[in-house]
Each structure stands twice: as structure tokens, then as C-alpha cells.
């Protein structure tokens, strides 16, 4: 009943590749931004907060269109990348990584932020009074203690990146073997007669990956929680 043709397999592998890259791309920025939002008071903090949440509330197709305007061959950043580095990301799998990372970003920031908010700031001050520099405090106290939030954030981000459709198809299109992810393949198959089986296969694969990711995140978060907070 399930059918794994060349196009289906290519879509699955590409989706996994894009989602993994997107997760690794957004995680460090998300940690940094979450830390700034929780622990620092600076001018423009509210603006940063709104900006972070923008991909969550904008229609994905709008985000994709903005990416195209900015990173497209004629866009400001797209031109610089093309002229100086010879890199094009619009209509490439790398563009899909960028789109997925941006769409996943707010989710990752939210869960990292929640876990940093749980940390008593006095613990960080205690580490400072012991002589640790702020950067060392971040890596030895804040980061390890917020680890459960990172795990959850990373897996949520991964799942979101895997399912991202609107911004991706707007920014990089739906080219089989190049930019066709699972969601865009399902969409494409549904437009063509006789491709129902492929669509159904990919639907099952999506469900399988998402549920596995969710269970894995729960299990990992519990383990890490235990390790970090003892008992």
C-alpha cells in the first residue's frame, strides 16, 4: 500500500536534511536572543521580542515573499551573496533551510526562554561572586540548567521545519529532487491524477516522524531534567 518511489524518497531525505540544518542554524541564535530577552534590559527589547514572534503571526506566504524580496537574486542580501560569495539561495535547498529556520525560530526561542526564566538569577550572581566572568557563568550555569528547554526547543523546531510549507514553496518553489520537501511533494502529488498513493505514503511518513520526535523530546527532556536538577 505504501509506495516509496524515487521522488518520494528524495522528498523525505531532503526534508530531513533541511529540518536538521534549520534546527542547528536557529538554535544558537534562539539561545542568544532568549537570554537577551530574559536577562538583559536594553532599549528596543520590545521591538526585538515582536520581531522574533513575527514569523509566528504573519501568513507563511508573506514571510516567503519577504525572503524572496530580500534574498532573491535582485534582493539586497541576495545580490551581496551572489556578487561577493557566488552563493544563490533562492530556489535552492539552502533557501529552504533559511525559510524553515526562520519559521521555527519563534518556537525555539519560546521554549528556551521559558527554561531560562525558571533559573533563579541569584544562582548566576552566586557564580559571579565566586569569580566567574559573565560569559563563563552563561556556559557553566545558565546553559546547562536550561538544557531541558533546549532539547524541547530543538525538537519542536525540527518538527516545525519538517512541516513548513507556505514560506518554503514561495521562496524556493517545488522542484523535485532540488527543493521539493515532504509537504510540497504531498501538495504536488494531490494536483496530479494517479499520484494518490505517493501522497498517502508521505502523509504516513510525516505522522511517523512527528510522533517519534515528540516522544523523543519528552523522554530526553525528562532525562536531562533529572540530570540537571538531581533526584
Amino acid at each position, binding site marked *: 500500500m505504501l509506495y516509496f518511489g524515487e521522488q518520494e524518497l528524495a522528498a523525505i531525505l531532503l526534508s530531513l536534511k533541511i529540518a536538521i540544518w534549520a534546527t542547528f542554524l536557529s538554535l544558537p541564535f534562539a539561545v542568544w536572543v532568549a537570554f537577551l530577552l530574559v536577562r538583559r534590559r536594553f532599549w528596543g527589547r520590545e521591538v526585538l521580542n515582536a520581531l522574533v514572534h513575527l514569523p509566528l503571526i504573519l501568513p507563511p506566504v508573506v514571510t516567503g515573499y519577504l525572503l524572496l524580496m530580500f534574498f532573491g537574486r535582485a534582493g539586497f542580501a541576495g545580490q551581496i551573496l551572489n556578487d561577493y560569495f557566488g552563493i544563490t539561495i533562492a530556489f535552492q535547498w539552502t533557501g529552504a533551510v533559511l525559510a524553515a529556520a526562520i519559521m521555527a525560530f519563534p518556537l525555539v526561542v519560546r521554549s528556551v526562554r521559558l527554561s531560562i526564566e525558571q533559573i533563579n538569577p541569584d544562582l548566576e550572581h552566586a557564580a559571579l561572586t565566586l569569580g566567574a566572568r559573565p560569559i563563563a557563568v552563561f556556559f557553566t550555569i545558565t546553559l546547562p540548567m536550561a538544557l531541558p528547554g533546549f532539547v524541547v526547543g530543538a525538537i519542536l523546531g525540527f518538527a516545525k521545519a519538517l512541516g513548513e510549507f507556505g514560506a518554503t514553496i514561495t521562496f524556493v518553489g517545488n522542484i523535485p529532487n532540488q527543493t521539493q520537501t515532504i509537504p510540497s511533494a504531498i501538495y504536488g502529488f494531490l494536483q496530479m491524477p494517479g499520484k494518490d498513493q505517493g501522497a498517502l505514503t508521505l502523509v504516513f511518513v510525516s505522522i511517523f516522524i512527528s510522533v517519534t520526535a515528540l516522544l523523543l523530546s519528552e523522554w530526553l527532556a525528562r532525562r536531562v531534567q533529572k540530570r*540537571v536538577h538531581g533526584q
Partner: protein
Amino acid sequence: MTLNVSIRHQFSGFNLDIAFSAGSGVTALFGRSGAGKSTIAQAISGAFAPTEGHIALNEEVLFSSEQRVNRPAHRRGIGYVFQQDLLFPHFSVQGNLEYAQRYGRSQTGTTNLSEILDILGIDHLFHRRPAGLSGGERQRVAIARALLSNPSLLVMDEPLSALDDPRKAEILPYIERLRDHSQVPILYISHSVSEIARLADQVVAIDNGRVIKTGSATDVFADPNIVPQLGLQSAGALLTATIEKHEDDGLSKLQSASGPIYLPRLDAEIGQSVRVRVLAQDVMLSSVQPENISALNVIQGRVSAIKLGRGPGAIVSIESAGNTILARVTRRSVQALNLEIGSSCFAIIKSVSVAPNQIGRG
């Protein structure tokens, strides 16, 4: 070691304007909750910058609004023990202690791990995790951790206030040992009269954002004018004595400059110097040598001050061979006994009225 602090800061509805110095030994910052003590501690440790002021430790300027200096917390060399223990939960006890050794200032030989573990009695906890320790054990580990960073000054901000009474009683002797065996000067912040009476060498009393009295612990506790701040129930002068003998009937005989004192059996060695806070309300006065009374301790002296309260009470200060005893009696009794400054007087103290937590190592 000298710590010089002078801070001015305006909070909504509250002005902090404070100046004091602290030397070696234990300097206690005493005041009621909300008197501004913790704000001062935070300013010293670098967690908070007051609008105006100057903070210097051994000639090193840590904060100065005038010179625009505000040294960050991690470069102040000030160990800090908080109200809660604040051990890092993701490290073992050993990990917590090693953290301080790793990031603290280089060892100069004054702080030695095994010595500190021994003073605080935590060697057996070395491999445990903070979550599995009792509140008192955790706080002792936190103190050890602060010491291992090799600080020039240890600030203890209400270190016992989160613990219940039995835990406080358990940990106080360790802090006394720390005071007697470690070279690190301590700024001890507390609202508890009994903790201050046991631990402090010097006292800086604070009320409503101002310093109201500074001096040696003996002098401050012997001042009748400080009684309202200490609280009528807990005010009392400190009497210094040495344990001479543990007697068969469960009493300990102590020798003081004012004569022998009998107290319920003390858990301390013979020859040990102790200081006893004699609560003013437990002291009875007599103008003649009392006879046939059950109280075991009668101390002869002269009245050095009489402070009449707004109500029916009065605080009488009695000077006896260098010791001072405060007695809280009624104004009526002051008149009936004809007490005046300079008149001879006997202070009567029941042995059983002195509770174990009023006795500290001298």
C-alpha cells in the same frame, strides 16, 4: 582588612544614607527587615549600584560615583552567602566546591580545602548532590564554597533566616568556628538579635536607612538606648566568662570578673571562654544583698544609667568590674529601691532563665 562603605540611594518612600567601616573578625550589620541591610550587601557585592557613594576594600575602590568606578561582581573578591543556599543543582558538592576553586582568585595558602571541610563538618558530603542534603548541610556547603573562592571579605546575608530553629542551632557553632579559625573577615547581616549576640565582634545597627549605633558587640548590647531597636524581649547585655568546672548536679560553674556564675551544663570544655546574653527582662534588682533566695547568681555593681520608658518600664544599667548588666524593671521599683546613678545594687539572675542559644563561644 578594612571595608569602607558610604552609600546614598533613594527608593520610593525610603532613603538609604549609610556610612560605616568594618575591620577583621565578624562585623554584624543589624536591623529590622526593611531597614536596608540587603541593599547594602548587594551594593558591596556588586549586584546593585547606588546613586551616590563610595565602597572600598583594603584601599581598592570597588564603587565610586565620583570617580565613576563600578567594578563588576566577579572582580570584587567578595564571597557571598545568600539567604537560600543557591548551590548549583547540576553539580555535586565536590563540583560546587571545585567551581569556586577554579574561578576564584589564585590560592594564597590561606584557604585550604581540607581545613575548610573540617571547620564546617562537610567532608562526608563531598560526593553527594545538593538535592539530597538537608537545609543546614546545604548552607554549610554554600559557606565553604564562598570561602574556597579565596575572598578578601565574606558577606553573609541572613544566612540562617531560611532555616528552622533546630537547623540554626546546628549551624551556629560552625560559624563560630569559622570566625575563630579562619582569617577571612566576615560581614554578617541579620535581623536576629541572638545570632548577632553570639557571633559579632563589631556591630553596626541600622534603622530606617540610617546607622544608629556602631561599636563592639559588648558595648552595643550594653547600651540602654538601643533596647527599643533590639526589642524589649530580646535586649540584654553580654557577659564574658570562662568555664571553670562542670559540677555533679548538672550545673557548670563559670568565672567572670564579677564573680562566679552558675548555668545549666554547657557543652564546652573547661577553660573555654564564653559570652552569655543575659536578657534584661530576666534580671531582678535588689538594693541590699539578698539572702535565702533560689536564684544562684547575684552580681554586685553600681547603677551607671537609668532609662525610663514611655510605659511603666525602665532599663537600669549596672556596672560590675568591667561587665555591664541591663535590667528591665518597673519605674515603681526604681523609685522604691531609690536607685540613682552611682548607687550600689545587686543583680539577680536565675540560672535556668539562660537558654542554651544565649550562650556563644567568646
